[in-house]
């Protein structure tokens, strides 16, 4: 149950390092806020959404695990919980965005709305008041799910509870439906409304799948690394690694399917209202990002994860998972920044500093959760 002293010390060092990095980057971001408030808020949106995506994705996979059970889940359940339990602090960290809604969203700017009949038409949904209200509702619902799902009455922390003995199965089934619905609305609110004239019905699923993929990939990468380097953290059996790799493979395919479907449908229809989104993102240098995503968010991981040998090696599976997490940041920048600089590649240093600031604090919280609820050897799981 408890970790050896050496691991505890190492974890504490890493937490201290993460907090320092996060605070230092946070101070730099504050300077950026004073220097250029508009840019700060736009970059901070990327920082918040990247880490919220990881936690939200982990919550989805966590509920999936409790619903269907399986050895792959037992191997990473503590990591998933550690990630999902960071949703409440993320909700608080997102508060500064409230001061700059007008800088980020054109529909939050009354002057712009006045001269735009379409934005006036969408005003009942897209207005700062209801945006903040929905934002609060999402985080309350997700945080409640994250803690309700992880709560254990019956067996000890390190005992397997095969599907639903505590009635958790039903909660997770409903929770997953709520997760997809709220996730879709959040994706529309936070990302799609950056370009409020544009719409795509597959968008919510596409964004949510990207988050689930990245959230799961982060957990796999962390579990692979920590189980190899930290004493007292159980090694993940090859069969479980194989399953984790296969699930990652499936997520990569679903993400690619959804992302390409949107492109194919808009490309086929060739309607001006819809194609603007891709003109903004596949022109003036942004096409590099598109190619990067096609190659490293899909093609390379797809081919690598076909290999059984790779999936059974914690080191190599961890590397592929790390690439996928990195590519999620590339995807997020590609989704957000062209809304402000259409067809014109321009990345501000704050776009990378903000994810670092939120990430330092997030990662410290993740490690702290893991050290207080460590991934120990589970009883009743075949090796």
């Amino acid at each position, binding site marked *: 149950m408890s970790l050896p002293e050496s691991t505890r010390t190492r974890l504490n060092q890493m937490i201290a390092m993460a907090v320092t990095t996060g605070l230092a980057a946070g101070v730099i971001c504050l300077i950026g806020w004073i220097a250029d408030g508009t840019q700060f808020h736009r970059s901070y949106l990327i920082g918040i959404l990247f880490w919220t995506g990881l936690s939200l994705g982990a919550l989805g996979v966590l509920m999936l695990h409790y619903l269907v059970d399986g050895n792959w889940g037992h191997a990473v359940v503590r990591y998933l919980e550690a990630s999902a339990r960071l949703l409440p602090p993320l909700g608080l960290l997102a508060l500064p965005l409230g001061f700059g809604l007008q800088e980020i969203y054109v529909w939050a700017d009354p002057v712009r709305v006045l001269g735009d009949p379409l934005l006036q038409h969408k005003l009942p949904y897209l207005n700062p008041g209801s945006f903040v209200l929905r934002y609060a509702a999402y985080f309350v619902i997700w945080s409640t799910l994250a803690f309700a799902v992880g709560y254990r009455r019956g067996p000890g922390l390190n005992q397997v509870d095969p599907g639903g003995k505590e009635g958790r199965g039903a909660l997770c089934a409903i929770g997953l439906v709520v997760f997809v619905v709220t996730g879709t609305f959040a994706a529309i609110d936070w990302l799609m409304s950056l370009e409020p004239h544009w719409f795509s019905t597959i968008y919510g699923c596409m964004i949510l799948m990207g988050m689930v993929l990245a959230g799961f990939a982060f957990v796999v990468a962390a579990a692979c690394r920590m189980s190899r380097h930290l004493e007292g953290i159980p090694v993940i059996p090859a069969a479980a690694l194989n399953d984790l790799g296969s699930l990652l493979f499936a997520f990569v395919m679903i993400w690619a399917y959804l992302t*390409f479907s949107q*492109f*194919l449908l808009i*490309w*086929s229809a*060739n309607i001006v209202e819809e194609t603007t989104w891709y003109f903004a993102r596949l022109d003036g240098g942004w096409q590099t990002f598109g190619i990067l995503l096609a190659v490293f968010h899909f093609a390379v991981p797809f081919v690598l994860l*076909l290999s*059984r040998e790779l999936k059974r090696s914690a080191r190599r599976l961890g590397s592929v998972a790390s690439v996928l997490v990195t590519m999620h940041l590339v995807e997020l920048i590609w989704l957000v920044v062209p809304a402000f600089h259409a067809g014109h590649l321009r990345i501000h240093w704050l776009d990378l500093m903000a994810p670092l600031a939120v990430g330092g604090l997030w990662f410290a919280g993740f490690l702290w959760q893991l050290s207080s609820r460590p991934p120990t050897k589970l009883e009743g799981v075949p090796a």
Partner: protein
Amino acid sequence: MPMTEAARIHGVLAEFDSPEALLQATRKAASAGFTEVEAYTPYPVHGLADSLGFTRTGIPALVFTGGLIGCISGYLLQYWVSVHAYPINVGGRPLHSWPSFIPVTFETTVLCAALFAVLGMLGLNGLPMPYHPVFNIPQFERASQDRFFLYILSRDEKFDLRETRRFLENLKPREVFDVPE
């Protein structure tokens, strides 16, 4: 037993009551040095393939090849049809419009990979096989119901009818059968 009869023996079959007994027997046969060993069970038994030394198959390479063939030929078929055989101007798009080729390319990839998987599996298993000597034993019928069989083939280098029979009898089976060719 006369030599002529021994030569016409295909192998020795042992019948077990439980998957655990079969698994144990298989492990003992492997550690005794037998390599030409088969096991028959009514349902998949976890760990049996490993203890039979059946760890690598040609299936992954076959499926990958099938996928590759399906992917390339599916794309080329569409390219040939849309650009050479029957070019149609669709809303001014180029004849070679790769985005619209992707879904069919994906389908043919999956189709060919799946066909290679199924047919390759049958082929590597030597199926269909109209005749196999183990079916000469009437009790073998229960391999598809509730009995578990271990079969040591006479072509095994270590095979000796009397010794192998004694070896199997020591594993406490229900019964041991000599299987004629």
